[in-house]
């Protein structure tokens, strides 16, 4: 083991790496934009019951009433205010997105950790299972499971959650494999630390940034999958999500009624949420990928990017 890599592996550098990560994020425009959007969306969703201008169960005008001052985005097919519907829709979409992601992170994270940490037969078996699930197309499987279980919010969350963990498990495993062999982990083991302690105290903190990046990206997929399932009529009919709004507009012929206000905004919102997640998650992943940072060539400069603010260790 060379001196340089030994230096990189010490825990102090690990903590400063988290700081460096935050710094990189703050200096990346796309990440800042993504974070701002996400915060705004989450705030709106959380505050929906208080800031939504109208009740979403009472009719306030004619079906498909065009936008006006009192209803900036018009009314839907039931004469319900679109702005209020969108706020509540974001709430349900985000609940599904976050909850499903949480389920998938717990499954994928633990499989990745166990697989990478213990290695050997455990690793082989777990990764085989992951491989099979990675290949089986998840949306059709989600459709099948959701169709059998019947439409409900809880089912949607579970269905999406239990099918999205594969890429997380792979990514985390790869990272754990390298962390496992680091000096401080081996020292901890030599000092007699138990598996649980080593995994929780030494391995998990090292893979946490990657897990967070993966989480943010998974939220995007979960929100997308929710709209797909809702579009097939597999989501809870009484809970309005953004996907449900798109489905309603499609089913109830908003297009032939010329009611663009019933169909354009929910899709735009979904796109914006997914975009924000991809920007933040992508920036995090980029910042974590040393290959993209250290040696980078482009047409304009075509030379190694100067290693600004980095110590000897990075060279």
């Amino acid at each position, binding site marked *: 083991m060379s001196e340089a890599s030994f230096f990189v592996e010490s825990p102090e550098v690990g903590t400063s790496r988290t700081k460096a990560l935050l710094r990189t994020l703050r200096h990346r425009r796309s990440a800042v934009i993504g974070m701002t959007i996400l915060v705004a969306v989450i705030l709106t969703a959380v505050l929906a019951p208080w800031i939504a201008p109208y009740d979403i169960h009472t009719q306030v005008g004619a079906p498909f009433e065009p936008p006006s001052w009192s209803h900036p985005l018009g009314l839907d097919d039931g004469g319900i205010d679109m702005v209020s519907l969108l706020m509540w829709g974001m709430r349900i979409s985000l609940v599904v997105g976050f909850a499903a992601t949480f389920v998938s992170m717990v499954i994928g994270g633990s499989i990745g950790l166990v697989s990478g940490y213990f290695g050997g037969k455990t690793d082989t078996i777990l990764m085989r299972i992951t*491989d*099979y699930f*990675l*290949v*089986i*197309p*998840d*949306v*059709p*499987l989600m*459709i*099948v*499971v959701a*169709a*059998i*279980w*019947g439409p409900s919010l809880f089912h949607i969350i579970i269905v999406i959650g239990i099918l999205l963990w594969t890429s997380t498990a792979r990514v985390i495993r790869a990272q754990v494999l390298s962390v496992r062999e680091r000096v401080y982990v081996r020292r901890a083991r030599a000092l007699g630390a138990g598996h649980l302690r080593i995994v929780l105290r030494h391995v998990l903190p090292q893979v946490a940034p990657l897990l967070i990046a993966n989480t943010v990206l998974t939220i*995007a997929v979960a929100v*997308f999958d929710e*709209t*797909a399932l809702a*579009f*097939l*009529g*597999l989501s809870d009919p009484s809970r309005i999500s953004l*996907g449900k709004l*798109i489905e309603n*507009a*499609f089913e109830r012929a908003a*297009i032939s009624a010329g009611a*663009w206000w019933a*169909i*354009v905004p*929910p*899709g735009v919102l*979904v*796109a*914006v949420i*997914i*975009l924000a997640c*991809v*920007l933040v998650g992508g920036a995090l992943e980029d910042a974590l990928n040393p*290959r*993209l940072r*250290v*040696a*980078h*060539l*482009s*047409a*304009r*400069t*075509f030379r*190694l990017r100067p290693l600004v603010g980095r110590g000897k260790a990075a060279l």
Partner: protein
Amino acid sequence: MRGTDYVLKRVAFAIVTVFVAVTINFVLFRLAPGSAVSNLSRVPHATQELRHALEVQFGLDKSKWQQYLIYLKQLAHGNLGVSYANDQPVSTNLRIDLINTLPMVTLGTVFSIIFGIFTGVIAAWRRGTKAEGATVTTALAFYSMPTQWLGLMLIILFAGILPTGGMTNEFLLNPPFWTHVKDLASHIFLPALTLGLVLYGEYTLIVRSAMLETLGEDYVLTARAKGLKPRTIVRTHALRNAMLPITTLIALSLGYIVAGAILVEIVFSWPGIGRAVYQAVLQRDYPMLQGAFLVLTISVVFFNLVADLLYFKLDPRITE
């Protein structure tokens, strides 16, 4: 022979995956609440005799294990059961659907792969310029849009100009060949474009990041130092190597294509396998849903295998 070993391993993996899918398929459907018969005999006050007759007809009176063996055996003979909805063999229904789906999906996918590689390479090569900003923004925008919504937007945009539903004009009876081709082409345009655009976004991003990785490699620097033309460097040094991760990622995105195809077919009433899934869900037509899921899974597994073999062709080192 290492090569043969690799090929055999991949083929074995594909077969086992299909088997896993088949089993998941069976288990899932037998876990369904209530028997299929209770859904089928929606006739009010269906008699006990009618229920029993239906159960015997669909083989639901046997034990689960027996049903599984029968299922496997029938599957091996290409028998996917009988649709609850139209009483036709599922395999016949699906064959027609699959033939309808293939041209539309192929068109969209080929379009997206070609353009995705093209703009992805430009974005990586012109890193830090306006060209990169524009390409990445466009790609991200298409990537973020829900497929079904993008389809609906295209319908709004092209309403009146292009047909927005179905595969052919039903009022053209026995049209002359060229009229028929023109009719088909006008119908296939919007669904294929929707699928193509969504995938285009994803592929541009994939190609860009793969290219960024290879452009940072030492051999690219060496090539540059040798004074090679930028075009040569991109094509023979960077892209050639970037094709490895690109192939894998495109193969992994096959599931995404399938999902996209389902949504696109619903929006444009394209009489393919995706719409068959939709209708099976609406009608609780379990054999059709089961069959469609199986066909979709097998095609994804098959194309994954193709990608694996292609990967081997691109980089013979992987057997080591």
